[in-house]
């Protein structure tokens, strides 16, 4: 097999503390708004606006937020599937060492994408209906010139087995499979080049609950077996809490809070996180004492409010929030928050709301 050809660059011993596998520094992605015949740029949609985060090796970082908050765009920028407007994406590639994905040229990018891969939300739209499973799962291997012929076939069979599908299915087309099975196929394709890091973009939100549990378990098993690291983008907070060691919350293109899962859910420091926690529908009909229902709408990323983007909907708003943008800072070890009043506010987590 081909992994033997590559000897991972092992510079971990040089560091006392291991650097994060992935580190993003002030990532920005602005989409221009064009108008008129000459496509004059009249403004920008700030889909991702100054996002910084890190993912340690072997962990799962959950990325949550409402639709349109830029979580998918962040995921795509990490692989440079769309080119970021600015920012640094530092990735510890086992072959190439620490690289800034945003500055890589095409050939190196193909290289780095052996180690960072993506799985998608819609298991129906993300598989080409005219390709057999062998073509789909083998595609990255062929494109990256990792394997061909008999070796490729063996590798595909191995991948299918790993994700819980029978290798005999190799000659079939995606239409013969159910949603959950298709998601397994997508996973086999992503894992075929034996990557380190996986961006999972809402991988279970299109699935039924019983199938969702199967796929979540599979993701956890594969993580342990193959030493994978996940960035898990989702809007279902219970699922994110279940699978992630740490969780990052985005609001209108900005990172508002990042903390270890239990800390974030039990003692949130940002009012938006608190509102999110309170909105989680829970399979428990016991009435809750207190529930925060946000008023108003999510801010428009093309024309965001002044100061803190959340201030028009925030229950704890003060004058400073309307004019000055808060800084995203570490308030306790590993707990980052972007709020003027983070230190003084006593916010409720999921447990106090129950």
């Amino acid at each position: 097999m081909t992994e033997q050809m590559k000897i991972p660059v092992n510079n971990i011993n040089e560091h006392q503390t291991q650097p994060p596998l992935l580190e993003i520094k002030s990532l920005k992605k602005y989409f221009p708004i064009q108008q008129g015949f000459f496509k004059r740029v009249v403004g920008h949609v700030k889909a991702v606006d100054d996002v910084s985060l890190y993912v340690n090796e072997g962990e799962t970082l959950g990325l949550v937020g409402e639709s349109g908050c830029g979580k998918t765009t962040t995921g795509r920028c990490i692989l440079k599937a769309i080119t970021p407007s600015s920012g640094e994406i530092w990735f510890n590639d086992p072959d190439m060492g620490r690289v800034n994905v945003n500055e890589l040229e095409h050939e190196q990018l193909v290289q780095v994408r052996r180690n960072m891969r993506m799985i998608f939300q819609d298991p129906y739209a993300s598989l080409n209906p005219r390709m057999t499973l062998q073509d789909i799962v083998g595609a990255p291997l062929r494109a990256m010139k990792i394997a061909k012929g008999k070796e490729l076939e063996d590798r595909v069979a191995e991948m299918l087995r790993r994700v819980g599908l029978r290798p005999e299915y190799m000659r079939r087309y995606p239409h013969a499979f159910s949603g959950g099975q298709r998601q397994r196929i997508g996973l086999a394709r992503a894992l075929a080049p034996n990557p380190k890091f996986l961006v999972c973009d809402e991988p279970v939100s299109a699935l039924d609950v019983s199938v969702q549990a199967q796929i979540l378990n599979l993701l956890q098993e594969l993580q342990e077996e193959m030493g994978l690291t996940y960035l898990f983008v989702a809007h279902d907070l219970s699922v994110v809490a279940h699978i992630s060691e740490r969780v990052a919350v985005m609001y209108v293109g900005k990172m508002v809070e990042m903390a270890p899962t239990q800390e974030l859910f039990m003692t949130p420091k940002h009012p938006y996180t608190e509102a999110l926690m309170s909105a989680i529908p829970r399979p428990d009909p016991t009435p809750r004492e207190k529930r925060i229902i946000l008023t108003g709408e999510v801010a428009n990323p093309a024309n965001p409010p002044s100061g803190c983007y959340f201030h028009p909907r925030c229950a704890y708003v003060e004058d400073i929030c309307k004019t000055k943008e808060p800084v995203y800072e570490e308030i306790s070890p590993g707990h980052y928050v972007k709020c003027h009043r983070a230190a003084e506010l006593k916010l409720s987590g999921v447990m106090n709301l129950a």
Partner: protein
Amino acid sequence: MPANNVIAEIKNLHTNFYLREGVARAVAGVNLTLEKGRTLGIVGESGCGKSVTAHSLMQLVPSPGKIEEGEILFYPPGSTTEVIEIHKLEPNSKEMRAIRGNQISMVFQEPMTSMLPVRTVGAQIMEAIILHQQVSKAEARTRAIEILSRVKLPNADRIVDTYPFQLSGGMRQRAVIAMALSCNPNLLIADEPTTALDVTTEAQILDLLRALQQDFDMGIMYITHNLGVIAEIADDVAVMYMGKVVEQTDTSSLFFKPLHPYTQALLRSIPQLDDVMARTGKNKRLETIKGMVPDPYRILPGCVFHPRCPQFMEGICDQIAPEIIEVEPDHIVRCHLYTAPAEAHTAKDARL
């Protein structure tokens, strides 16, 4: 004649789809009762027949599908004797059209596609009002604005002239709800109305539906696959699997004392926040239901859940179809575990 607060009854409903691959029995013997001022939640995985049940009630089953057997009875308010037999009405008959959108109305899953993109929100709401109530256009517009503000849309007098694409997902879903409520329905069918929305917006919409139910005293049939949403909104719950109601009871009994193995398995397969918050170290695995939903063309002998059931009893479950058993008052279940009273089975708490 049933009790006064019953709005509609579904009795032994069978709806089949005649496809090239065979006959898909989407709804195979469903009994449901809808009451005034109460919410009946219907949960199940995709393909279990929950939406087809709702569509049957509205006579909106699309073409290869047909209501094959059973009765759908609608009791119009204000009359104690009148019964409308919906199952006998033609889908496009005058009588059916007089009920649909007027006394029974529906909110669909996808707020993007349930409104016409080329007409304003107001025009679409006014259309229903003018059709069902003899009012002038100006009067209809006033009512449209009124109903838009009832669903808590800000600046209703401005929103009335906007097009659906100018509104956000949550606002559009409010507008769709306004449209459904425009003729003061007695029964509102909500088919996954919040599935496409974010949690914070979902919380707003659920809150709104609860408030509107009190104001209008209407019955709601709420269809979803999300057990969390069911716990929030429903008074009673019916769990469907393969076209059958396998368990039905009030919401707290269902969550705290589920009887059917399928309900128990469903409840265990969703991540529980309490567990996550209490855990130390690496997260544990979720429990799964083995296998998957069988294809709808097959007729399984015995219980429909037997190939996946953890408490499968050979010779019984795969041979005899279980009947509906009322294990406790108002708690019915379709399972052989509860047939023999001698082997009285104490249901385990699914939240273990």
